[in-house]
Each structure stands twice: as structure tokens, then as C-alpha cells.
């Protein structure tokens, strides 16, 4: 049975464990140069928002699995002709793509695509809503170093309101038993966070006090001009993770960042490159969890090359 990966919010702890275990296994095999199950499928990489890192990561993942990637980016004419999203998706469906990896600036767009596509859709980031594979990469990174996520205190620091990474991470960590905190200025925090699984802090020091893990979020360029915060200096003074501030966290606390980093804004060099930082591991683990996601969505490997395919397979959300 095929299925979509649209959000962490809809997964249960068991499914998350499944994905993390798959990611871990794939990592072992790739690093040891071992045979990987080969999935002869064609996956469309549909990026309505520019992204080098996530797209390369998915392409690598597909490559390791023996899948073929076809790229569509918003700068190429294929996505720019004023076609509705529905029509774009239907076209890709009837061009017999087997799956879609999709990034879109509007929350909920991959869910809409899944209605019309007929094959698995993986959300590679939709608006402010979710970025499931990033959260999986972060979780794998944390688990490798801490053994278990249950009982950990994780502080997500920065512009939570505009962050899909914050949302996906909060859901995943909470579902696996972590204690989640959101830390950031009032104007960059959701106005009503009651349904989100995190406690809100506006003061950095109390927010990261004794935290086992800190996830620093990127402050986007737009925040500097849209009136929501004061100057960069003001933000950095209050929320930058640096050596001084790390003293408030638990000893040896892990520092994560989804990238790209604004050095000097949310992190200073010492923090980004220091002993607490696991940022490069996140990047590498991204490939393996994306392999897991692709595998999980297609469920079983199909060694036969081009078997005629009909769109009658039921797709689960």
C-alpha cells in the first residue's frame, strides 16, 4: 500500500519510530557500502520555492535508492505558466510520475496535491505548516547522541510563528515524549499557541534553562523589514545562542539548526562550530531520513523495471 507523508501532526509515535529506524538502517548500509533495496520509481521534485539543500538531499536519497528524480523548479517555465496547482499535479500524474516531493509557499498545498496526484506525495516544506523530513533528521541526530528522545527538554528558539520546522519538530518530539518549549519574542510567536505542544517563553535564559537540546531557528530576511521586530542587534542580544547563553542549558546540550545559518544573528561562530553543535550531522542525516521517507511511502521495493501501472492503488494520508 502506498501512502503520503504530509505532516508529522498526523503520524503516531509508532510510525515515527518506523521512519527513524528505517533512517538509521539506511545510514548503516550506505556508510558501510552495502546493498540497498532498489526502488525503480520516478519521483518528481516539485519545488515552488527555491531550495538547494533540501532538493539535493532528496536527490541523493533517491539516488541511493535507485530511483530516478525529475526536477521542476519555480524558476523554470514549467511551473510558471499561470497553470492552477491542480492542473500541474494532474499533468504530472498523467506523465506517469510515481511520486512527488513537493515544496510550496502555501500551507496545505501538498495536501491539495495529494488529492489529485494518485501516488505518494512527500511534503518537503509547505508555507509555515510542516517540514516532516527536517524533523525526522533532527530526531535521528538527537537520538544517535542521547539514545532516546523521551524525557528530554527541547527548546525551539526563534521565529516560531513563521516556522514549519518549529511545528514539525514540536509535534515529533512531543509525540516521542519530550518536553517542548518555544522561546522567542511575542511578535514572532503564534498568538494562540494552545493547541501546539509547547510551553511559551519570551526570555531566552529561562527558556533554555537546563534544556538538553536547543533548536535554533533561522531569522528570515523579511522579518527585518516587516515591522515585527526591532533591529537585528536587538534580536541577537535577546535570542542569540552563543557560548554565554549555552551555560544556561544542560551541560553538553545539543545545538541544532535547520540551516541556512545567519551567523551573528541566531548563532555566533563559537556556537555554530563548537562542541555542542550537531548541525553538520543534521545535514547528513537528512539524506538518510529522506531515503526512509521515500521507502516508507512506496512501502515495498519493485525490482521489475517498467511494469505497466494503473492508478488504482489506494493512497493513505
Amino acid at each position, binding site marked *: 500500500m502506498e501512502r503520503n507523508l504530509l505532516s508529522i501532526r498526523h503520524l503516531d509515535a509508532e510510525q515515527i519510530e518506523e521512519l527513524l529506524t528505517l533512517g538509521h538502517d539506511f545510514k548503516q548500509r550506505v556508510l558501510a557500502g552495502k546493498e540497498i533495496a532498489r526502488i525503480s520509481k520516478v519521483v518528481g521534485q516539485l519545488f515552488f520555492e527555491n531550495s538547494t539543500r533540501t532538493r539535493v538531499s532528496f536527490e541523493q536519497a533517491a539516488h541511493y535508492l535507485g530511483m530516478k528524480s525529475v526536477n521542476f523548479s519555480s524558476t523554470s517555465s514549467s511551473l510558471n505558466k499561470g497553470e492552477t496547482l491542480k492542473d500541474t499535479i494532474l499533468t504530472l500524474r498523467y506523465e506517469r510520475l510515481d511520486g512527488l516531493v513537493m515544496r510550496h509557499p502555501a500551507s496545505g498545498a501538498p495536501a491539495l496535491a495529494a488529492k489529485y496526484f494518485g501516488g505518494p506525495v512527500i511534503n518537503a516544506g509547505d508555507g509555515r505548516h510542516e517540514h516532516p523530513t527536517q524533523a525526522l533528521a533532527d530526531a535521528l541526530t538527537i537520538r544517535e547522541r542521547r539514545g532516546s528522545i523521551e524525557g528530554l527538554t527541547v527548546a525551539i528558539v526563534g521565529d516560531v510563528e513563521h516556522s514549519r520546522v518549529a511545528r514539525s519538530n514540536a509535534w515529533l518530539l512531543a509525540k516521542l515524549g519530550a518536553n517542548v518549549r518555544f522561546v522567542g519574542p511575542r511578535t514572532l510567536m503564534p*498568538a494562540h499557541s494552545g*493547541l501546539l505542544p509547547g510551553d511559551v517563553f519570551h526570555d531566552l535564559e529561562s527558556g533554555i534553562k537546563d534544556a538538553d537540546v536547543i533548536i535554533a531557528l533561522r531569522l528570515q530576511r523579511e522579518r527585518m523589514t516587516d515591522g515585527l521586530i526591532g533591529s537585528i542587534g536587538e534580536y541577537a542580544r535577546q535570542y542569540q545562542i552563543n557560548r554565554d547563553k549555552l551555560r544556561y542549558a544542560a551541560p553538553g546540550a545539543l545545538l541544532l539548526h535547520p540551516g541556512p545559518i545567519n551567523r551573528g544573528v541566531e548563532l555566533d561562530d563559537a556556537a555554530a562550530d563548537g562542541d555542542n553543535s550537531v548541525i553538520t550531522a543534521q545535514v547528513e542525516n537528512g539524506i538518510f531520513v529522506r531515503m526512509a521517507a521515500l521507502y516508507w511511502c512506496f512501502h515495498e521495493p519493485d525490482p521489475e523495471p517498467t511494469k505497466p501501472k494503473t492508478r488504482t492503488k489506494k493512497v493513505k494520508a
Partner: protein
Amino acid sequence: MRTLLKNGRILDPSQDLDVIGHVLIEDDQLASVGTDLPDDIDDVYDCTGLWICPGLVDPHVHLREPGREDEETIISGTQAAAAGGFTTICCMPNTSPPLDNPSLVDFILDRSASPEAGGVFVAPVGALTVGLRGEQIADLAAMKRAGIVAASDEEFPIQSSFIMQKAMETCVQVDLPVMAHCEDLSLSEGGSMNEGAMSAVLGLKGIPRGAEEIMVMRNCLLSLHTGCQLHVMRVSTWGAIEMIRQAKYLGAPVTCEVSPQHFVFTEEHVGEFDTHYKAMPPLRTQVDIDIMMQALQEGTIDVISSDHSPHASHKTQAPFADAPFGQVGLESIVGVTLSYLTHRGIISPLETIRKLSTKPAQILRLDAGTLKPGETPVAQVTVIDPDCEWTFDVNKTFSRSKNSPFHGMRLRGRSVLTFCGGEIYRDRHFSDDRITMLT
């Protein structure tokens, strides 16, 4: 030709009348209303168990013509109105081009009188400013002579208090009510649903309640200071309701309306980005609905209107933030209102009809909303079956557009017969054996 609507429950709020009786329509005029049985009848419609009301009045309808005839036309929209039980509707000025000049007013009046149309009265609402751009007051006096009954900034809410004050002063002079779209765009810009717990989870930019409340308050104050009659469209928050209550208490000539989606659904109905629930103003919370129910009971809310907003399906089958706001409503409003308000005891049948007919007619000075013979140009009568159980199927409606959140819902109560002059709509739920031709 004497047609008798026999033995129905006559509900006429204009006379505070709630009595079992008979209504006689002679040719196209309302001849008599009462408990005496007239003689010399040609046709009898047996209305036992049904309500006989003044033709319903919807002051807030989008007919989309000119400009978006793929979504609705004056013909299809008036047919939808007749099927919904309405004999008078007001069409909003945010067409393309906008209704800001007398010749377009003439066009609308001509089209609505054409034989293929639904046979209902269309009372146009003119644009307050030229092109709805919020800069220059439109030719309101000329449009009034041509036939507008009010002026509005619908879809393009006037942000400048200065312009709104000048517009209201002009409307006082020309004697037109203002139907205001109360929204502070600096707060609502980019938002697609209520700023609340759901928008935080879905990662959608929210529209804070202040966006509505600030402009409701501003417009009420301007109404108080200028003496301009103000009708606040589409109220959705308890704060806005409170502002209006205060304004009325202070003596401002203010009235307001709600649409059914705002007393039936909350932000939670958006669920997984379902664009059927993208409303303007956005669907709020249960607290707002509870206060709205109280306000309907005490009369702070004067009118229930549909804000019938047809949208093409290719626009609604889009990511939530990109989809348009609004739902169709002419053919579901009576069923939904009866099911969610009247049958739940929130408002009585007489009050229901007051809010769906008499009060909007009074506010807009329309010759409608009453069963007093001689007070309306032709007989305008709606017969409602209050107990008819049915499922609303948007695909069986006259409207060209099918964007309804009520599709598939079980409702109790519907309009079954509409007379505007003669009979303009008879629903299949009004069975043929109720009709007897005596001659």
C-alpha cells in the same frame, strides 16, 4: 384571478401577526390577509402546517454581473433567490466594473426585469467611492435617482477615516444608508482564517479579531457623529457585537447582520485546509457563536442575510491562502436558519421572519417585508414548510456556483412557494395535491 393561500400560519412581523389564516392574492396584488375565508376563489393552495410570510428580503447578495458571469449572472442569481424564498434582494457593487455610475444601475434593473430572470426585485447597492478605490466619493445622488437603495465599500473597505466621514456626510445629504464592510486591512492583510489556535497549528496567517472590531467601532462612531444610517455587514466576533450594542445604546443609527456560516461553523471546521470554510470575516470560535445567539435573541443583531458569494470551482480548489473568501447561500439560508436557530428555540418563528424579511426591508426602506395589502407594488409572499426534512444538495441549486459548506447537511425547514406578483417558484416539496383549481 383569485388565488387563496389557505389555512397557513400567517407570520407578519410588520403587524406582529402570528395567526392561522388565509391570504388572498388577486391578479398580482395582495388582496386580503386574515382569518375570514374569502369567497369566489379560482385556485386554492392548501397551506395547512405551513407558514405564510412576507416575501423574504436578502440585503447582501453578489450577482457577479457584470464581470464574472461564469460564477453567477443576474438571471441565475435571481432564480436562486426565488428558489430560496426571496422576493427582494440587494446586489453588491463589487462587480467588474464596479457599480459606481447610473448607467450600470439601469443595466442591472433592466436585466433583473427580463423574463428569464427569477422574477424577484433587485435593489442595487452602489459603490461609495469611484471604482471602489476609496479615494473619491461616487456620484451617489445620480445613482440614487437611477435606483440604488444604499451605498457600500464592499470588498474594498475604506481605510481612511476622513474619506469614510465624507462619504457618510454625503449619504446623509442624499438620504442613503451605508452598508459597511468593516475590516482594517493593515491587520488582516495576508490572513486567511481567524487568528487563533487553529491558524497556529495549520501555519496559516491569521486575521485578528481586532481587524473587524476596530472598523466596526470606527464606523459606528462616525455614524453617531454624522447621523448617517449605518448597516454593519457580516458581524462575526463578540467584540463587534458589543461595539454595536454600545453604539445603539448611544443612539447611533446602526443596524447589523450575520450570515448563517457564522452561527453554524467555527475555525475548527477549516480542518485540513478545506476552502469551503474560508469565510469573510473568518469563522471564529464557539464563544463568538454563543454571544451571537444571545444577540439574535435580544435584537442586537437585526438581520440574517446570506452574503451569497459565488466562486468558480477552479478558484476554490486551490491552496487555502490562495482561495477566495465566501460561500453561496441564497438556497440554504432558510433551511439553515430554521434548523440552527428557530427549531433550537433561539428565536421564535415570527422573529425569524422579521430578521429574514421585515427588518431588512425597513432598514433599506424597501416596499417589502409586509403582508399589509397595498404596501408592496405586487404581492410578495413566501410559504415555508417548517418541518420539511431534507438534505441540502448544492448540485441541485440554481446558482451557477457550488461553493457551499452546507452541502450534504440534513436540514429541517425550507421555503416551498414564492409569489412575486404571480407564483415564481414552487418546490417539489410542496406537493401537487395541495393545489386545487376551482375554475
